[in-house]
Every structure is written in C-alpha cells, then in structure tokens.
C-alpha cells in the first residue's frame, strides 16, 4: 500500500514537472504569478538537474533482510552574498533520507525524513582586514598560481616566507562560518503507516566557529592522533573538525504515530529540540572513519513521557570504510583521454544504535556492505 502511494506521488510529481516544463508563459502576468516565478524556476531546475542520489546497501538484522540507506537531495542557491567576506547567502533545498528494508517489519530504523528548507550562511572573519585585497597580497596569491607549490611542505615554506600570505590564509582558516535555516519536515515510516510533521529552525556550525583562540580544541586531539597513523605518501591533512547542528521544532500529527501507545501521552503537538554532530577522518591511505550522531529532546515533557524514558532519543552511527574498488587517487592518463573513471566501491562496516523518528523504536545493528555512488 505504502509503495503504491509512493509510486502515485512520484507519478503526480512527474506529471506536474512535465506540465510545468511544457506550459507557455501567459502574456499578462498577475502579481501572484510574479510572486510564484521563483518557485516555478526552482521546480523547472529540479526537472533539469540530476538529483544527487546515494545508496548504501547493508544487511539489516539476523533475519537476513537486506536494506539500504538512501539520500536524495536537490539544492539551489537563491541569493548569493553581495560581499563574499561579510554578506549572507541564501539556499533552498528539498531532500529526503532514510533506511529502507526488504521486509519493513525487519527494519530496526524505520525512518524516512523528507524536508524542505531555506538556509542562510554567513562568515565572520577573525581579521577581516587581512582578507581584503592589497597590492602585496594580490601579488603573493598570483605568485602561487604562477608557480604552484608541489606539496604541503612547500606551501608551508611559501607561507612562512610571506607575512601577507600567511596572515591571509590564517585569517581565512580562523573565520567563523555558520548557517541558519527554517524547515518543514515529514517524518514517516517505510510503509507510511505512521508519520508526523515538524516545523522549525536551527543553526549549523563547526569546531572552528566556536574555537577559542590560543586554546586547544577537543577535536584537535583525535586529529593529532590520526596524524600518527598516516602513511608516508599521504598529504598531511588538516582533518576538518566536527560539525554540529542545534535546532528547535514544533512537531505535530503525533496522533498518527505510536507515541500514545508507547508513552500514554495523547498530545498531538509538542516542542522539540534537536542536536546533531558529524565527523570524518581519513588515515592509512584507504581507511576512513565516520561518526554521525543525532538526538531529539522533548521540551517540558509530561511525566508520562519521562516515565516511559522517551523525552530524549538519540541515534549514533559509526562507520569504518576501506576502499576496495577504484583507487582513492584519480588516474590522470584516463582523465586526459576523457575516459570515465572506474566505478569506486568502499567496503563498510557500520554500527548504529538508537531511536529515530517518528516512532523512536530502539534498534541496534552491525551492518556490512558496499557503498557506491551513482
């Protein structure tokens, strides 16, 4: 039933896109049509662009059901920053992610989240003056493009030899970056039997955004340890720090979920806070470690929810990947011949545990599988 509804939704969406593409613009344009123009352009762009579609196959549990994670993502910049140093940029996106299993009853993480969001990003330079163009800085940066360094060590030497270049790159690295968003989410199960909707906003940032100058950040410690594991031919990577997201939502439609049965609370709408973190580190040439954590906290929950231990729900995912097909490094000969790069696949061992919306059933799995991109 759920699959049929999904197919029907896709058919309706396709028909809408086709009709939107084929429609002739009407000569007199009402204020409403002017207002809807950006929306229409956005929809036409969706029809034109290929979506980003990523699949990770894996076993789901002991019942040998197979399953996969999916991510579908359309995004578009709707307004660029007028000033790259200090302006705001606005982006719109529609995305869906979830875990599907061949047997929906075997899906321990039965959660499909579809979301529309508008986000604005801003940059807070630590030392904006050193990012601005000066004749000497321009000369140094152009010199890097005339005679680029062969490796990181040479780049470091070039920075040490030029105060302007060093100040610019250090200031660029220290600049604090964050994004804020407003969003509407649909949180459902694989068969669409249970679902709710969430409306809210949040802020995303990384460890550089909250770094205190002169103080060692906690993320520097694992990075320093991983540097000890790097092989000789690896670049000395900076290992970008962890990213974080804090948000707040009004969640409604809870009577269409298992909430009442699990907690005894009959409310249809609740306030909810969201916390997320993600981090990746690469080491030993082909190995990569990924950590993703997400949690929700019900704000001012009734005692029934607290007694049922459902006010705080979290989900953690640890993944260790080893690239087995396709070298991590591109083949320049193949590229010169404009040949398609060979398919790449990564063998992944993954552990995940926790609860995901809408029903927050507790699951714990160890999965093995292949990760590929299309």
């Amino acid at each position: 039933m759920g699959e049929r509804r999904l197919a029907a939704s896709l058919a309706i969406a396709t028909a809408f896109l086709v009709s939107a593409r084929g429609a002739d613009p009407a000569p007199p344009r009402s204020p409403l049509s002017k207002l809807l123009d950006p929306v229409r352009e956005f929809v036409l762009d969706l029809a034109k662009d290929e979506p980003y579609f990523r699949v990770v196959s894996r076993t789901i549990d002991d019942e040998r059901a197979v399953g996969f994670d999916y991510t579908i993502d359309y995004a578009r910049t709707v307004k660029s920053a007028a000033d790259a140093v200090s302006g705001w940029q606005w982006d719109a996106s529609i995305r869906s992610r979830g875990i599907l299993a061949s047997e929906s009853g075997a899906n321990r993480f039965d959660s499909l989240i579809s979301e529309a969001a508008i986000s604005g990003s801003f940059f807070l330079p630590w030392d904006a003056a050193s990012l601005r163009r000066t004749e000497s800085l321009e000369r140094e940066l152009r010199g890097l493009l005339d005679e680029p360094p062969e490796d990181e060590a040479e780049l470091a030497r070039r920075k040490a030899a030029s105060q302007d270049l060093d100040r610019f790159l250090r200031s660029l690295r220290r600049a604090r970056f964050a994004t804020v968003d407003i969003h509407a989410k649909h949180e459902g199960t694989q068969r669409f039997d249970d679902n709710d909707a969430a409306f809210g906003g949040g802020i995303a940032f990384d460890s550089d955004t909250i770094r205190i100058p002169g103080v060692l950040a906690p993320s520097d410690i694992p990075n320093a340890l991983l540097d000890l594991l790097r092989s000789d031919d690896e670049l000395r990577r900076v290992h970008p720090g962890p990213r974080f997201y804090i948000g707040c939502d009004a969640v409604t439609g809870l009577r269409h979920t298992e909430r009442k049965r699990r907690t005894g609370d009959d409310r249809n709408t609740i306030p909810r806070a969201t916390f997320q973190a993600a981090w990746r580190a690469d080491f030993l040439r082909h190995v990569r470690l990924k950590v993703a954590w997400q949690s929700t906290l019900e704000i001012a929950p009734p005692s029934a929810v607290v007694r049922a231990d459902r006010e705080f729900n979290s989900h953690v995912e640890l993944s260790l990947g080893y690239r087995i097909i396709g070298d991590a490094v591109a083949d320049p000969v193949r590229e010169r011949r404009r040949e398609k790069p060979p398919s790449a696949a990564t063998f992944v061992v993954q552990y995940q545990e926790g609860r995901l919306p809408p029903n927050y059933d507790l699951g714990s799995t160890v999965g093995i599988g292949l990760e590929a991109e299309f």
Partner: protein
Amino acid sequence: MAKLTAKKCENFVWVFFLEEGVLPAGTTRANILALKVSDLALDDPPLPGDPHFQKKKAARRMQIWFLAMGYRLPTPLPILRDGKKSLRQLAEWIREHHEEARDG
C-alpha cells in the same frame, strides 16, 4: 586586468584544496583534476541539519580568495554540491565565471 588563464585556474584548484586539507591520500598536481568532488572529504557523513555545510564554507572561502586577487567569482556551490563533477570541470567553471572586481 585580464582574466586568469585556464592553467592558472587549474593551479588555483590545486593550491586551494591543498590548503583546505580535504584531498584524498596520494593526490598530486598531476592527478588532482581527475578527482571528483565526491572524492573530497567534504560533508561526509552529512550533517542531517545542513548536509552541505562544508561545501558552503569552501565555496565562500574560494570567493574570498578570488576577491583578494582582484576578481569576483559567483558562488561555486552548485559545482561542489554535485559529487559527479570533476575538479577539472570545477577549474573550467571558474575560468568561465570569474571576472574583474571593479570596486576592488
């Protein structure tokens, strides 16, 4: 002021990502352009609240770098969001889209 040559745009892609620290092991000047955007360690795993956070940050840094060289570059975010694009395509896009910053 003339636009940057194709070669210099390719060199920019190398220097920029070398400084960003997101290149896979074994990347050199000779093979970087054959890499795909998805090979870079950007937004992996994605943060559910903003799956393009690091790409947005890298795109903004790229624009600031160009501004400091006296050029205006529209946001390269659409290229960075497309994991299938190669870094050669990114360099070509930069070559095509950057222009002199009249207000410096």
